[in-house]
């Protein structure tokens, strides 16, 4: 496949969160993207959710920025109602046939005014609201959909079935966008690579009658529960019993419905997300109504991810959610009024009967049959659990070269993993097509900017309801009326979701039509949404810095929900402060600086090497630093991945490939001593061993410093030789050392050092690791007695298969959560392990030849030092704190620095590899641009006031201020200071020092701060002076 015949475009199949992330990363790396979406709008499953774990953000606020970005991106073409029929050709040049169903609405004309749907007589069950609400035959998928265009459901529409009936919508449609004779179309598209982000469907519990779904109205699925809680859901966020609308008092969540079950369905795998979303839903509903009695019935509570265990612990201790370790066999009615009876055996083995108002089935994830057929047609191998069969070492590559896959199609996973998977797939596609980068993309011309310097301020205030988050507490109409009275405010508007695509477009129109030159948005926090609104101002043709946000949600509605009057008063003050500040804001031009096209990767483990290789394939110069004298990091001690792939052989291949890739320069025994500069132009000084310090110029940095093993203190480790830690045991086992060879009985103890007071987090890969060792031991000598003592078995996702395999081999699992950890003592040549059985509640004794401790994974101590050098935050456990768990899982607030692998959080090998690729994608996306724009709000010297007294010079941490002599018009030598706009970070320390207000930060000048203070205290009487 010669280089030049490759096509610089990529097709992403599936518009869910994972597909959107892949599309954005690919498009921003210089490739045209065809985003093929089966339904009428992109967004996938996420818009259906009300809140998402572990941050409890409202789901729409997380996905809105990505929806809007995809909708507006010049290099992403969204093909809705389209499905891929087949793909032929080879990597670099695929020929894809896509069939597009008719929308019956002309996209270019439809303005989504909603008249048609209002008049449409036919309503059918709405799949978006998982069938607990109705929608019309002509509808939009959800209010914030992108593209926000109506569509007609051919199965429901009367007119389509019988030409001379109905047709009301066509008559009343203002722009006349409806056309009943749209025909299905076929498209032939040439692309260089394909990314399959096909997503999933939730298990339909109606198949097995045992849970009473579809029979008893108060048995609902978790997705329906989510819709009941959603402010834009059918009941506007009010939870009531579906049977009779009465208030709910007692709720039961049943876990593992459609997962870990060979009897009522054939999904033997664990769906990985249900435990977490059940806790989230329980916490959300308990928060709204603390007296609610909420219980979760589970087999193992699987919350292995970052901050997940804390989330679980908080739900239990702070919110009082009850966790009952007992799977409910079935749901029966109690009496005729809708109450439900749950009969279960308590952990002690006693019968308990509970009558509940609502049963929520935590349904699992599965791949729809249509997608399985499509995959087979394209030639993608699937796993027995009907997910794309991927290798742990190439987590986004399918069996067919050039076709990548990401998201829940690779196996059940949560949103952060799907976002990382999207970026990883992007990195792999971009690496494949690097030679034809920027050949198919359309240049993005920034709109001309209107010069408003001479105009008097004309301010537009946009107040957001944010569903009920703001409107539920603050009297938004009163605040809007107040805002209209403020000086220079010419336009006030209220919207349900200001961050949604349609409202953004509306804002652009308003700015143009009314000639607004300053915008205030009263909504959520600028920290997450300022960039989004700035882009809107830019596309409306006014300078993006003539903008200020009033944080009336996070810092007002949400924190004063018990005191609505105070919240309303405060909202008025916050808006007045924002208006007064925006009045005096000036237009700013971002500073454009060139990017050094090279990357510094700190840490030579598998993660570092994977990122280095991918970026090298993308054509950039890589500096790979390794603390020790050998590449490989923690993977050197690993023997096999969860699905049995041989790690040492892969590691050798990786090391070789890294060694003979020309543009990767490796330095061993090297640590970083100093870092200066900023994104695009870092200068890092490193020292290798004892040799002289060297400096490296690089544009981006990726932190892959891995983690450290916990050396156990408990269970007589170090005192009894036969008690070993899991990694040591792997070595002994690999070389069949005597203790292992003639060992007859082995006891594994889980959660050693993890999930305790000191380290309240789960090290995520020890359960899988121990079970694999146990299986290998048992297969070698079947007569061996193997016991695994655990607290929760967390073989999430398709790892459940090895847990079942272990039990089939007769490996005995004993849970010590209820009766306390085992006691270890010496017994003649062996080790005596005393533990209580969790079913029989009786003491057991095991004479073990070896005891293996599954020790925790700790943050590496060097992380603190590196964090200070790059000024990066660490979380409470010492791991690097990413910018946002879902939106930006591999990035920091410091631009140009990324993190991947164990340095972010303990995780199995293939998750580290896909996070490495994701980091490479984000870094590559940045390096692909020749220059980047720096935030322009840096320090400005006021020549009228500054007289060079020099008091500010030494206070600047970035040494950006220097004394300057000049001659005034009369020739007398005078002094002032000058500030290097690139070095200056805009911290304002000089502004806080200057005794004569000679230097200020754009956007935070003295007058602006004083104006804000005055606005905040307008109706406060000056402190009464007691004589």
């Amino acid at each position, binding site marked *: 496949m010669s280089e030049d015949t490759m096509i610089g475009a990529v097709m992403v199949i599936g518009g869910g969160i994972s597909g959107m992330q892949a599309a954005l990363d690919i498009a921003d790396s210089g490739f045209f993207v065809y985003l093929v979406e089966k339904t009428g709008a992109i967004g996938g499953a996420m818009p259906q959710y009300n809140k998402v774990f572990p941050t409890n953000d409202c789901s729409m606020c997380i996905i809105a920025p990505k929806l809007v970005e995809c909708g507006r991106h010049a290099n992403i073409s969204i093909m809705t109602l389209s499905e891929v029929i087949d793909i032929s050709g080879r990597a670099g040049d695929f020929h894809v046939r896509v069939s597009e169903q008719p929308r019956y609405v002309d996209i270019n004309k439809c303005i989504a005014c909603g008249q048609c749907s209002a008049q449409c007589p036919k309503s059918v069950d709405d799949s978006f609201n998982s069938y607990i609400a109705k929608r019309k035959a002509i509808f939009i998928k959800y209010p914030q959909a992108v593209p926000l265009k109506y569509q007609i459901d051919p199965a429901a529409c009367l007119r389509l079935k019988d030409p001379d009936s109905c047709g009301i919508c066509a008559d009343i449609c203002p722009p006349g966008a409806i056309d009943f004779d749209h025909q299905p179309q076929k498209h032939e598209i040439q692309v260089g690579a394909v990314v399959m982000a096909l997503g999933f469907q939730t298990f339909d519990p109606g198949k097995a009658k045992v849970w009473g779904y579809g029979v008893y109205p108060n048995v609902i699925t978790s997705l329906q529960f989510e819709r009941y809680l959603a402010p834009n859901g059918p009941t506007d966020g009010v939870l009531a019993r579906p049977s009779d609308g009465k208030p709910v008092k007692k709720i039961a969540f049943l876990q593992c419905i459609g997962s870990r079950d060979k009897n009522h369905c054939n999904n033997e795998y664990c769906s990985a997300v249900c435990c977490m979303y059940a806790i989230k839903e329980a916490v959300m509903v308990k928060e709204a109504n603390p007296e609610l009695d909420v219980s979760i019935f589970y087999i193992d509570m699987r919350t292995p991810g970052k901050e997940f265990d804390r989330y679980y612990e908080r739900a239990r201790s702070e919110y009082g959610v009850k966790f009952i370790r007992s799977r409910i066999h079935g749901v029966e009615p109690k009496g005729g009024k809708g109450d439900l009876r749950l009969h279960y055996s308590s952990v002690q083995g006693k019968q308990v009967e509970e009558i509940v108002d609502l049963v929520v089935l935590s349904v699992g994830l599965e791949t729809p049959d249509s997608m399985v057929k499509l995959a087979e047609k394209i030639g993608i191998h699937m796993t027995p659990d009907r997910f794309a069969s991927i290798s742990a070492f190439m987590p986004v590559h399918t069996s067919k070269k050039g076709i990548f896959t990401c998201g829940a199609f690779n196996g059940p996973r949560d949103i952060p993993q799907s976002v990382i998977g999207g970026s990883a797939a992007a990195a792999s596609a971009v690496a494949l097509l690097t030679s034809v980068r920027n050949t198919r993309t359309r240049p993005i011309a920034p709109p001309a900017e209107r010069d408003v310097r001479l105009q008097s301020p004309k301010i537009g205030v946009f107040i957001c309801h944010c569903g009920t988050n703001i409107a539920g507490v603050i009297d938004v109409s009163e605040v809007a009326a107040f805002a209209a009275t403020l000086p220079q405010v010419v336009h006030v508007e209220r919207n349900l979701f200001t961050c949604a695509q349609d409202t953004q477009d509306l804002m652009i129109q308003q700015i143009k039509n009314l000639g607004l030159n300053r915008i205030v948005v009263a909504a959520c926090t600028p920290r997450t949404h300022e960039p989004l609104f700035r882009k809107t101002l830019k596309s409306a043709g006014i300078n993006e810095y003539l903008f200020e946000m009033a944080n009336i949600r996070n810092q007002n509605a949400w924190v004063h929900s018990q005191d609505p009057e105070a919240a309303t008063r405060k909202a008025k003050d916050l808006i007045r402060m924002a208006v007064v500040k925006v009045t005096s804001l000036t237009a700013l031009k971002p500073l454009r600086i060139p990017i050094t096209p090279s990357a510094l990767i700190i840490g030579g483990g598998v993660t570092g090497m994977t990122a280095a290789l991918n970026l090298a394939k993308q054509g950039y110069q890589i500096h790979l630093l390794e603390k020790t004298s050998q590449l490989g990091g923690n993977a050197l001690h690993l023997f096999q991945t969860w699905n049995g792939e041989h790690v040492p052989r892969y590691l050798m291949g990786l090391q070789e490939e890294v060694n003979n890739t020309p543009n990767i320069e490796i330095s061993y025994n090297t640590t970083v001593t100093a870092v200066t500069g900023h994104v695009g132009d870092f200068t890092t000084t490193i020292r290798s061993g004892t040799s002289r310090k060297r400096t490296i110029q690089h544009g981006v940095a990726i932190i892959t410093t891995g983690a450290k093993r916990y050396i156990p203190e408990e269970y007589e480790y170090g005192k009894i030789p036969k008690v070993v830690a899991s990694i040591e045991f792997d070595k002994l086992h690999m070389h069949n050392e005597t203790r292992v060879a003639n060992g007859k009985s082995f006891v594994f103890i889980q959660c050693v050092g993890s999930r305790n007071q000191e380290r309240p987090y789960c090290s995520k890969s020890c359960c899988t690791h121990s079970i694999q060792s146990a299986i290998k031991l048992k297969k070698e000598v079947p007569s061996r007695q193997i016991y695994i003592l655990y607290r929760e078995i967390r073989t999430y996702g398709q790892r459940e298969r090895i847990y079942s395999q272990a039990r089939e081999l007769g490996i005995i699992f004993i849970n010590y959560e209820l009766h306390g950890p085992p006691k270890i003592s010496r017994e003649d040549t062996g080790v005596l392990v005393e533990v209580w059985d969790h079913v029989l509640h009786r003491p057991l*004794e095991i004479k073990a030849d070896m005891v293996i401790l599954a020790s925790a994974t700790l943050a590496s101590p060097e992380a603190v030092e590196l964090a200070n050098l790059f000024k990066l935050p660490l979380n409470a456990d010492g791991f690097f704190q990413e910018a946002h768990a879902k939106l930006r899982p591999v990035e920091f607030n410091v631009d140009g620095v990324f993190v991947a692998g164990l340095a972010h959080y303990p995780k199995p090998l293939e998750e580290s590899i896909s996070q490495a690729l994701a980091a490479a994608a984000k870094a590559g996306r940045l390096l692909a641009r020749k220059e980047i724009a720096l935030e322009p709000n840096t320090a400005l010297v006021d020549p009228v006031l500054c007289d060079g007294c020099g008091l500010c010079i030494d206070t600047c941490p970035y040494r950006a201020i220097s004394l300057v002599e000049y001659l005034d018009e009369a020739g007398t030598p005078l002094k002032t200071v000058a500030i290097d706009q690139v070095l200056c970070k805009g911290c304002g320390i000089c502004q806080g020092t200057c005794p004569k207000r000679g230097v200020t930060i754009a956007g935070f000048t003295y007058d602006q701060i004083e104006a804000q203070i005055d606005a905040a205290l307008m109706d406060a009487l000056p402190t009464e002076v007691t004589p």
Partner: protein
Amino acid sequence: MIYEIKVNELAEEFGVHRNTIRNWINSGALPAQEGPGRRYLIQWEDYKQLCDRYGREPRISPEPSARTETIQARKEAPALAPVRLGPKTNPLYTLPTLADTCLTCGSCAGACPISGVDDLDPRKIIRMAFLGLDEELLASDWPWKCTMCGKCEIACPMNVEILQLIQRIRSRRDRDKIPPPIQKGVVTCLEKGNNLGIPKDDFLALLKELGKDLAATACPGFVTPVDVRGARLLVTINSKEPFVEPDNLTWWWKIFHAAGESWTIPSENWEGVNWGLHSGDYSAIRTVVKRIIDNIERLNCKALLLPECGHAYYATRYALERWFPESLQQFKIYTVFDLLLEYLNEGRITLNPSLHAKLTTFHDSCNYGRKSLKTFGHGYFDEARTITRTCCKNYVELIPTEEENYCCGAGGGSWASPFSAERVFHGRIKARQISESGAKVVITSCHNCKDQLGKSLNREFNLDIEVQFLWELVANSLVTTGGQTP
């Protein structure tokens, strides 16, 4: 601590009838003194013991602060000798699907109606087998209180073969330790041809007598066909009927007569019952079924009506498929449902639906229902309902029903075994189902179910219901060609 109870409150808590509570008090199972105002005063320890016996979580505990989840089990449990785990010698089972694949998730324990009795439940039985506590398992009576209804198996997400394990435990017990009535039944059947040892001539005399009465009343010209060579259908008899309720036999005879069926009863080894299934005595099962096959060959019959009692149907069909598969080629086998449906569909009998106006329901017996579905691939749910509804228009379903139906409590030999308290306790859920459905007539297709529902639960739970066999209902609904009812 004195615990004051009102009889109906305690009945509600334990899910039993007021009479049962009074029986427990009178029989001393629950020591109590009369208190003021129709209340009883009992010691908390006795109440706790009663809860333990029936595996209930005590609703109130003396120290309100004691959290059940605390490691209270350890303090409270008598000093149990620690179990030394190790390799299993002469294991109870070899296939991992009998216990090893168990997730200890508790679904089976939640589903089993007698979970908690003797502080045992299906999950604990599996666990003991898995950890090799075979002697304790064999010594325990719990496997004999279990009716092997299979409710635990259909709940198990990992498809653990719990019933096979219980069967294995039962067959491993020494014969002299088996509940005496069951062992006696099996031995008598082997020696005398039928469980109750009815001598041949008494049996034949009875048949003749009944035949004459029938000919005189409903079926003119009827003669009880005994040892009729060449008859199409061989019919077996449940020895309990001639012994206790002889006229029950006549229902089938009326139906055969109305349908003009060519059938016969063997004079010897006519027993349909097969208690080997209850005692786990596989050779006994095989012998009894071999006798049936011999009769078919001796009388050159073309078809066999599988014995109508639930366990008998299951045992016979199981034996035929397992040991005598070739015989299945020689003759056709009918269940009671297939036969009655054949007659209906071929119009050989017609039924008058207006005779039974009361609200009626059908109780799926476990062996014909989920166990048959699991072992033989088909559960007789729809057939039973079609037949019942052709006889009664006023029909209601129990909840839950069909595959998820609760056992009446008398299966697996319980009706004959000495654990009547547990049997009644097991039946409480069935009693609740029936009372909640409001049905006045309950149709079933199994002797044990009929006795348990009709004789025991009806009185114990004051259900005020009438219980009929399916074929009794059909017999009573027959419209003979002359139009007058039999």
